[in-house]
């Protein structure tokens, strides 16, 4: 099989072929940049007022667009029936079991690493902006889940944008945000840990989207109040009580 002296042994499987690929190194050493970012105070990104206004307008329009869209063939039925699991991101089986992805909050950088206290005003990570195209092979339940995945990803994208580099100053906002993130972490824990049937899974994803909507709404409100220098205490208190 081996014809040329230059070609090594044919790999037995694809995993072997992939594993034999060399480890790549970044074109330059990124550590100095990283270290500089660690030492510097966490930058506050100045988002132009027009961008904030657009984000808030988009958020405000989202419910209307949601209801105006063509009705899905399988309306969500299990919404809000999902169990709310108390707890925070982190509790997982040991070793061979699933591991937690880091919890939601972005802590401040180096200074705060020494005091690893969860900071709620942070940036959830990933995000997407559009739903993936629907495939012909998706079933009704799949389609519902796909729609929830896409909505969840859209909201995370918006939330990441609104939260990036921004920390709420008011205690009530912090508490409310932390409470919502705790709820989200509980939902994620339930999604990750338990064997779920379709209905339960859809219910949890509905609950996740709902929690993300509330978080996004809160973050948008915080940014607006920060922009205009007003207090968001009233809003938060209404939410709390």
């Amino acid at each position: 099989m081996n014809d040329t002296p230059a070609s090594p042994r044919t790999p037995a499987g694809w995993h072997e072929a992939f594993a034999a690929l060399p480890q790549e190194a970044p074109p330059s050493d990124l550590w100095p940049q990283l270290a500089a970012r660690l030492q510097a105070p966490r930058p506050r990104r100045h988002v132009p007022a027009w961008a904030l206004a657009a984000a808030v307008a988009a958020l405000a329009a989202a419910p209307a667009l949601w209801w105006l869209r063509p009705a899905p063939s399988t309306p969500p039925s299990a919404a809000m029936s999902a169990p709310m699991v108390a707890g925070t991101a982190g509790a997982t089986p040991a070793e061979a079991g699933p591991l937690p992805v880091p919890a939601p909050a972005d802590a401040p950088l180096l200074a705060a690493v020494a005091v690893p206290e969860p900071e709620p005003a942070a940036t959830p990570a990933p995000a997407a902006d559009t739903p993936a195209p629907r495939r012909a092979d998706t079933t009704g339940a799949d389609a519902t889940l796909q729609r929830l995945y896409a909505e969840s990803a859209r909201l995370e994208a918006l939330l990441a944008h609104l939260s990036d580099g921004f920390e709420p100053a008011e205690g009530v906002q912090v508490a409310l945000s932390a409470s919502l993130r705790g709820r989200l972490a509980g939902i994620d824990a339930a999604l990750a840990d338990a064997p779920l049937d379709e209905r339960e899974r859809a219910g949890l994803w509905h609950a996740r989207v709902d929690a993300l909507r509330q978080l996004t709404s809160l973050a948008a409100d915080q940014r607006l109040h920060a922009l205009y220098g007003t207090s968001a205490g009233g809003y938060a208190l209404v939410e709390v009580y």
Partner: protein
Amino acid sequence: MSAPTSPFAPASCLAFAPAVPAADARGGAAPRSAFAIEVPDTLLARARRGEAAAFEQLYRWFERPVYTLALRLCGDPEEAAEALQETMLKLLRRVGEYRGQGPFWGWLRQIAINEALLRLRRNRRLDEALPLDGHDFEDEAPPPPAAADAAALQRALARLPAATRSVLWLYHAEGYTHEEIAGLMQRTPSFSKSQLSRGTRRLRALLQVEESRHE
């Protein structure tokens, strides 16, 4: 507790996901990730206390695995470098949240995958996948000889759509199952299976073209 991994755990840093490859049909042939580096507890403790030297040590150890994974998924050195930097910043910010219920490298790998997929989603490149044709039989034949040529394999991988390449990499190189990949990519397990099947066949074809070119 060793609850089974949910196939639809959300693919975000808010979410949970498996850190180590779950058992799958490949049995003992499941690959070992390049991330699988044991990190001493003492080093993690120093990092938790905010020691810059400990952070640098962690960075140096995981720089290449993170960058390589991001490069394979994103296919672009600049995006991979950004993903590396963001992954490491998240590591440094959140190392205090790692509670040691699984290997540290699995925790870090999850952040890296999320960062890479985030970039693909932002550019809508996660929608780039091979079309389904209803003939997604499992390709269990060994790779062609050209797969032993790293440069040829990398060229062939680069020609696959981003989502297809990501599925192949997560399955073959990192050892994720279809259910886990579906959760990471917010798609269905059948999407992962079909992309693996079609992508493997496309990869084989691309490598065979390479071979014939050199004959």
